[in-house]
């Protein structure tokens, strides 16, 4: 069906189509609408789900863990301070290998308070053992949330599906949705890898492990993340086969003969596409590499791909506050360190707290990247000094 939906509406609709067993969530701008709309589906009996309107995000994730460990397909949504408040529980969901799926309407972290879009929240959670998907469009958000359920369950890892706060969460877009039945059939019933409520096989979920076992548990979890990339590729292929459209872990735009590319995630990819098209008309050999999957970090794909270019401008919509740029820049630098052919890497931070990022900004960055050098180590795009 072709519909006009905002990002939040589209993710809520995807949740309806998924029909999760349990949803526990707390309101926070800009993701509030996702659970608000979902609760109307619950009220109208359009989904089978049990909805728990908890009293905080910390409790939201704790309740999700309890439900997921009890054999239920479990979802939630949050952003920013809410994700930060969940932080402790994110690691527990990851360590317990529970395939909870969470929408994040990415938003800046306080202080100073800001409700607008950047990637600080999810990226601050990067080491918690969650798969992380970043979406460029509302359509991609809808599709990715559905995929994330299958990927999370097959990989036994929790997953974040992030759309840029306001820029996508509140942006009306034409989207094509699937038949509810088709989505539910494609996902199939939830099969838990363990079940607290299996009385025939009583288990203890979340034991204490000391020096003799903790490390082994963690190694297993890391191995789960190592094996997640092929799972993602497999599910993306299944999705494409079933629904006739799909995505890759890393996507290229007009890179065939490109000398300079920009590397980034999220809604700004659309802005960069426009700049690429304009520069291509002017005869510039430029392109874009879009990262859809931040965790697992797809180094196996990025290393051979990015070696092809002379220079890569790395655009981060968050900063590590380390004086060494953003997350993508530092991780890509590590990935390419021992590559036989290393492109020149230029670090840019942009759009913090929802600061506008325009095709002109992107064109200015391309000019520097094509020249292969710039004055500062890290450039803070569009910031007033």
């Amino acid at each position, binding site marked *: 069906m072709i519909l006009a939906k905002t990002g939040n509406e589209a993710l809520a609709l995807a949740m309806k189509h998924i029909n999760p*067993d*349990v949803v*526990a969530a707390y309101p926070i701008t800009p993701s509030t609408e996702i659970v608000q709309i979902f609760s109307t589906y619950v009220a109208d009996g359009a989904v*089978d*789900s*049990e909805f*728990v*309107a*908890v*009293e*905080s995000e*910390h*409790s939201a994730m*704790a*309740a*999700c*863990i*309890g*439900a*997921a*460990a*009890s*054999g*239920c397909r*479990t979802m939630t949504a949050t952003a920013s301070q809410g994700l930060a408040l969940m932080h*402790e*529980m994110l690691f*527990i969901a990851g360590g*317990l290998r529970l395939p909870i799926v969470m929408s994040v309407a990415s938003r800046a972290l306080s202080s100073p308070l800001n409700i607008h879009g950047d990637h600080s929240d999810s990226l601050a959670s990067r080491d918690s053992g969650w798969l992380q998907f970043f979406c460029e469009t509302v359509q991609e958000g809808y599709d990715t949330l559905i995929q994330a359920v299958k990927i999370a369950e097959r990989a036994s890892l929790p997953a974040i599906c992030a759309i840029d706060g306001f820029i996508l969460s509140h942006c009306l877009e034409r989207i094509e949705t699937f038949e509810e039945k088709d989505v539910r059939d494609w996902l199939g019933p939830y099969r838990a890898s363990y079940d*607290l*409520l*299996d*009385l025939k096989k*009583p*288990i*203890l*979920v*979340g*034991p*204490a*492990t*000391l020096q003799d*076992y903790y490390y082994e548990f963690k190694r297993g979890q890391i191995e789960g993340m190592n094996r997640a990339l092929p799972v993602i590729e497999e599910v993306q292929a299944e999705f494409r086969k079933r629904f006739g459209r799909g995505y890759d872990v890393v996507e290229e735009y007009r890179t065939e003969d490109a000398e300079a590319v920009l590397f980034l995630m999220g809604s700004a990819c659309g802005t960069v596409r426009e700049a690429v098209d304009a520069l291509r008309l002017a005869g510039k050999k430029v392109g874009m590499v879009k990262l859809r999957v931040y965790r697992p970090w797809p180094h196996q794909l990025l290393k051979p791909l990015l070696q092809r270019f002379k220079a890569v401008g790395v655009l981060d919509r968050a900063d590590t506050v380390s004086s060494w740029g953003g997350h993508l820049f530092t991780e890509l630098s590590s990935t390419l360190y021992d590559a036989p052919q290393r492109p020149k890497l230029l670090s840019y931070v942009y759009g913090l707290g929802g600061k506008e990022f325009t095709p002109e900004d992107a064109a200015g960055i391309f000019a520097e990247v094509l020249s292969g050098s710039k004055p500062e180590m890290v450039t803070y795009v569009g910031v007033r000094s």
Partner: protein
Amino acid sequence: MVGIKELCKRPELFSSGHRACAGCGEALAVRQILLAAPQPVVAVMPTGCLEIFSSIYPHSAWQVPTIHTAFETSASTASGVEAALRFRKKMGRLQEEINLIAFGGDGGTYDIGFQALSGAMERRHKFLYICTDNEGYMNTGIQRSSATPYGASTTTSPAGDLIPGKTQHRKDIVEIMIAHDVAYAGQTTVALWRDLMTKVEKALAAPGPSFLNVLVPCPLGWGYRPGETIRISQLAADTCFWPIYEFADGRYKINYTPKEKLPVEEFLKTQGRFSHLFGAEGGRAIVAELQRYVDAKWSLLQKKQEALCTP
């Protein structure tokens, strides 16, 4: 109520061989609670002594399905388990009537998990929350909590030359739970094992969320010899330092009235955490204040028993 003959035949659901200290009141309470609860039971426990002494991988003392997530999350995790129970019942994916019990220490209940507990009770998730209350953060080394009584010396409210231990009275958690209109609330202690077990049965039979506060003396944290746990627990009831009562259907009921209400001093002087109150200057005033507080609370409880307190 279960008789002792039948009790002997019930399987141990909290097995021996765990790593609790000798004389641990909490371990005794959990064992009695699991013996009392109609099966099947699923348990939630917090990070703390209970989890550390009962579940160090690859061992577990729990013979019932049990989940542990974090320190402050017993009630919130139980909320999720209870939602899962409701969902699976509704969808025909679960046949059994499971009794869900969430445990918390006083730190995880009165302090860091307070919000999660309040939220869970307000949402009326059907489970029994049991606070095993030893009046402080014992697992981390005997720090003060909002359950620590006035005058007690802990490692973060030490009795010093200037400040004589904790300078505030405890929080009345049972009253706060009653204010949530829980279906059943009660307070007891391990020495009164029959009362404890009856309350577990009643709480689980109540048509909604329920709460039990169980005083569990801690030899290490309170400073007494391990063999004294039950005697001290009994003294807490006999001095009315720890009133034994319940609340259901809008009525308070005192379940245990000591034949002779002993001075609170009889309870205090058994424990190292109050030893600075005896002999030192100023100690008498603190003991007197504790006695005044205990008497006032007891008298108030007696008055409440006479009234119908229902919304």
